[in-house]
């Protein structure tokens, strides 16, 4: 099965072309340009160098979030556009799961007998002091999901690792471009920083996660492919706004009422 996969959820845009588990071609770029400029040329590159045309693709895949708002939209819209009218299935993959796929494959290769199995903690910067994250553990070279994708502050992530009996004491493999910022707030001595190549989402593993989803019957039509923004829960937003103060009502020059915080 030929899969075209792409990712644009974080600072890097990337695309890969796979025949099942065999990587045909892959390309990525991190140059600060917006993904609207970089993603389509990358897709064109992997198709051309792979010698495959769009009409030969059996499954389109992308990361569908969480991540950058515009990045998620660009990836999902690109795949929807490529698949539109072709009747080819699409699969949206969690960006965190794609990161965990790569970490699980490496954990399986380096597993030592008798050691506690590591946890896999992908981290993407969600801003406002939060990280998009989920917990996985390696299971035969694949990631086994332990928690749902969430936007959490570093204190909550740290508490979960330190206080939950299921996770206490186990080494933690970090991955994702939020790992360096999160590390100082995580339990000391247990967390392993990722090598540079595991900071970024691999489009190869987006393809592998998409193939797994497809085999479970979880691929969808292009119309049903949706982004997952994973916004900060309303309760948390309310709390943040309360912390800023109720504000004082003021009237601007157009006569409508606006609210300005007490500074």
């Amino acid at each position, binding site marked *: 099965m030929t899969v075209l996969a792409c990712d644009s959820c974080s600072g890097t845009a990337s695309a890969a072309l796979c025949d099942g588990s065999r990587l045909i071609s892959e390309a990525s770029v991190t140059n600060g340009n917006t993904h609207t400029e970089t993603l389509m040329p990358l897709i064109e590159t992997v198709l051309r160098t792979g010698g495959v045309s769009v009409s030969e693709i059996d499954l389109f895949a992308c990361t569908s979030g969480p991540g950058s708002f*515009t990045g998620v939209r660009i990836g999902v819209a690109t795949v929807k556009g490529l698949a539109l009218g072709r009747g080819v299935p699409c699969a949206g993959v969690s960006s965190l799961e794609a990161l965990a796929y790569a970490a699980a494959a490496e954990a399986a290769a380096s597993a030592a007998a008798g050691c506690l199995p590591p946890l896999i903690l992908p981290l993407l910067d969600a*801003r406002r002091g939060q990280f998009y994250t989920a917990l996985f553990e390696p299971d035969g070279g694949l990631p086994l999901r332990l928690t749902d994708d969430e936007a959490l502050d570093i204190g909550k992530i740290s508490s979960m690792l330190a206080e939950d009996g299921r996770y206490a004491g186990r080494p933690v493999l970090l991955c994702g471009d939020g790992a360096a910022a999160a590390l100082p707030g995580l339990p000391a001595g247990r967390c392993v920083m990722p090598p540079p190549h595991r900071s970024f989402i691999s489009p190869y593993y987006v393809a592998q996660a998409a193939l797994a989803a497809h085999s479970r019957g979880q691929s969808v039509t292009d119309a049903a492919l949706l982004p997952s*923004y994973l916004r900060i829960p309303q309760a948390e937003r309310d709390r943040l706004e309360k912390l800023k103060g109720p*504000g004082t009502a003021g009237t601007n020059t157009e006569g409508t009422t606006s*609210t300005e*915080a007490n*500074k």
Partner: protein
Amino acid sequence: MPSAAEMSGTVTLFETVSENVRDTGLAGAKLAGMIRDDPSMPSFVCLRGDLGAGKTVFARGFIGALCPGVRVRSPSYTLINEYPCRIGGRRIRVCHMDAYRINGYDDLFSTGFYDIPEGRDSAVLCEWPEKIYFALPERRIEAVISPVPADAPAGTPEGRKITVSVVNE
């Protein structure tokens, strides 16, 4: 000794009276130069003033100083206009934002506001910042354009008073 940008509370960077459009644009350019040249300066600017105060003129001066030659358009309908430019070999994004039509966090999230890089990789100039008070950085610059008060000392020219401060909450 901390610089003005590093001190807590509110520290005035400069005050000026603008007598015309050129003066207002020059004030914007002056602030842009301070941000460009001082790494300790916050790069998020709240631009306050009534309709017609000269916010867009100030913004043109500010953006023009960082991104010479660009045509600055109003962000009233696009909400955020982005101007990529290079400063000293660094690639940065200058974002000009009009928050007037933004109502709450969901609205702000859907503008891509949280995709703007933080720190020295961007400079943000935000009009109507009171609409996104919940998202303003604690360290920021406040630029306020107001009419020269009627009780100003004799000899003060008519026009706009422009006060630019660093706020460390």
